[in-house]
């Protein structure tokens, strides 16, 4: 047991160093495969298992044992009970059992002024009943629905949290505390106006979009706040819309409130991890400006250029293409890991994570075999 505790301390130290700008003893490794992957890989039914997370403990235990990494892979982005009870339209389970986000519109274009004047009230009174149909009810029923949903939410997460604590104690993994928030413009796109709606709004009502982003900024800051800001926790911000915009639109609509969000969180003494989705190569100079040691996990782009431009200031991660695990052989998969280590480790600020999460298994188990080989390679060869 003391060995395990030591291992856990050592792992925590890796992240403490990494997040404060010191090169850790070795490159920390995170498993890109998720709970969805594990459930399917060990032969459980994805849809059912997510409804009864307690019964997955043996699955998660095996997963942690057979795919050792520094951080715990036990977690989930979304569990279904909460969303189902609320009658969610914004997050739904697809036929394959994956939780997904369809195009939704919580705010109509003619409602911008009302929204801007009091965004929180507008969300509670108008947006929630639109996106969560069971909340579109009499106050007494609404209160019941909300109580049930919150109960299901806290029960599910308590169960998952307890499984994580037990597996961590057994395998010495670490689990940073994470909160989730969004860039104000992304929040407007994802839950209020839709991808389509916001793309038209920036041309039709540009000033209203700017004002709306400013109006939701305080809510996004609050949403990203951790209970106890701590060097081992971070606020996770997945970035969506920027690559689909012209730079001049980005500079006007996206960047100003996003930058303030990250700065405000940093001032509170907490780390921020950006999931830099899609290709942000056009925006590296902007990313450079963010507070020192912002963690940036990239999906696409040229890691060399990113290392040159950002490697002295920020923590870099991502890039490893998970599709290669499906198409490549073991040697190719390991070569790719080596290539990324050679480029990114010299910055002293590299964390091994992949470009995307792995959410499904293949029939012949190739992905799992390749994944194991890559994780092991980085674990043993990841020096700075």
């Amino acid at each position: 047991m003391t060995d395990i505790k030591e291992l856990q301390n050592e792992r925590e130290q890796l992240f403490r160093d990494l997040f404060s700008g010191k090169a850790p003893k070795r490159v920390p490794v995170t498993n890109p495969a998720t709970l969805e992957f594990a459930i399917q890989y060990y032969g459980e039914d994805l849809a059912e298992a997510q409804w009864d997370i307690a019964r997955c403990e043996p699955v998660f235990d095996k997963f942690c044992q057979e795919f050792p990494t520094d951080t715990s892979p036990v977690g989930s982005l979304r569990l279904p009970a909460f969303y189902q009870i609320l009658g969610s339209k914004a997050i739904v389970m697809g036929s394959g059992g994956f939780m997904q986000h369809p195009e939704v519109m919580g705010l109509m274009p003619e409602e911008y002024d009302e929204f801007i004047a009091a965004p929180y009230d507008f969300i509670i009174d108008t947006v929630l009943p639109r996106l969560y149909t069971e909340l579109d009810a009499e106050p007494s029923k609404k209160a019941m629905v909300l109580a049930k949903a919150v109960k299901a939410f806290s029960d599910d997460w308590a169960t998952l949290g307890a499984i994580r604590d037990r597996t961590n104690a057994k395998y010495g993994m670490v689990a940073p505390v994470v909160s989730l928030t969004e860039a104000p413009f992304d929040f407007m796109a994802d839950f209020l106006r839709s991808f389509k709606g916001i793309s038209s709004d920036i041309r039709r009502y540009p000033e209203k979009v700017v004002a709306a982003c400013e109006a939701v900024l305080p809510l996004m800051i609050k949403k990203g706040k951790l209970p106890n800001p701590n060097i081992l926790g971070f606020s996770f911000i997945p970035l969506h819309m920027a690559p689909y915009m012209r730079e001049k639109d980005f500079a006007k609509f996206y960047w100003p409130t996003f930058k303030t969000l990250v700065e405000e969180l940093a001032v509170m003494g907490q780390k921020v991890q950006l999931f830099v989705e899609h290709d942000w190569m056009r925006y590296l100079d902007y990313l450079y400006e963010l507070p020192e040691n912002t963690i940036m996990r990239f999906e696409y782009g040229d890691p060399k250029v990113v290392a040159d431009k950002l490697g002295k200031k920020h923590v870099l991660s991502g890039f490893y293409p998970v599709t290669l695990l499906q198409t490549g052989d073991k040697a190719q998969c390991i070569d790719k890991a080596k290539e990324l280590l050679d480029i990114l480790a010299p910055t002293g600020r590299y964390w091994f994570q992949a470009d995307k999460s792995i959410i499904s298994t293949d029939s012949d188990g190739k992905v799992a075999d390749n994944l194991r080989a890559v994780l092991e390679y980085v674990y043993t060869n990841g020096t700075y």
Partner: protein
Amino acid sequence: MLDLQALTQAVGDLDEEVVVSMLEEFVASDPSGDEAYKVVGACQQGMAIVGDLFEKNEYFVGDLIFAGELLTQAIDILKPVLGGEESQKVGKVVIGTVEGDLHDIGKNIFGSMIEAAGFEVYDLGIDVTAAAFVDKVKEVKPQIVGMSGVLTLALDAMKATVDALNEAGVRDGVRVIIGGNPVNEDACKHIGADAFTTNAAEGVKICQGWV
């Protein structure tokens, strides 16, 4: 008659105000159906400019989406002078985003462009099952079925749909075209479609060649 070149340019610039006011003025002048089709042609040329600027990385997906909206709006304004219900349609096409996929931006752009080209369009929406495609094909007997999808798994759903058309004995009566980012020649063969494209304008040309 309005300045066709200026209209094309305004569509290319995605200048909604100018496009709408030009078209409204044009419609108010009580033009002939022939003239109206020339105006549609000018809008489509404008969309070609948008496509070029997208290729050159001057426009991005968000701009494409707005271009789709703008085109739909333009066709709506022009509808009353395009000859109305009785006018001869070039052909019928059934379109939809295949099962499991909820993305419809590309499908909608293709839908407005093919409608502008004079086709009668039956749009089944998103997450369309193979059975729904089969039922609609039996009902309206189109010349063309257009399937859209951007998820990798959409390719399997496209194959299942073609298989279902075969089983229902209606595959031979229609041409099948597929579109959306992941389609390519291999996928097209595997699925058993007649044509594929990742460019809506090219898709319209292919369909025109079929009727």
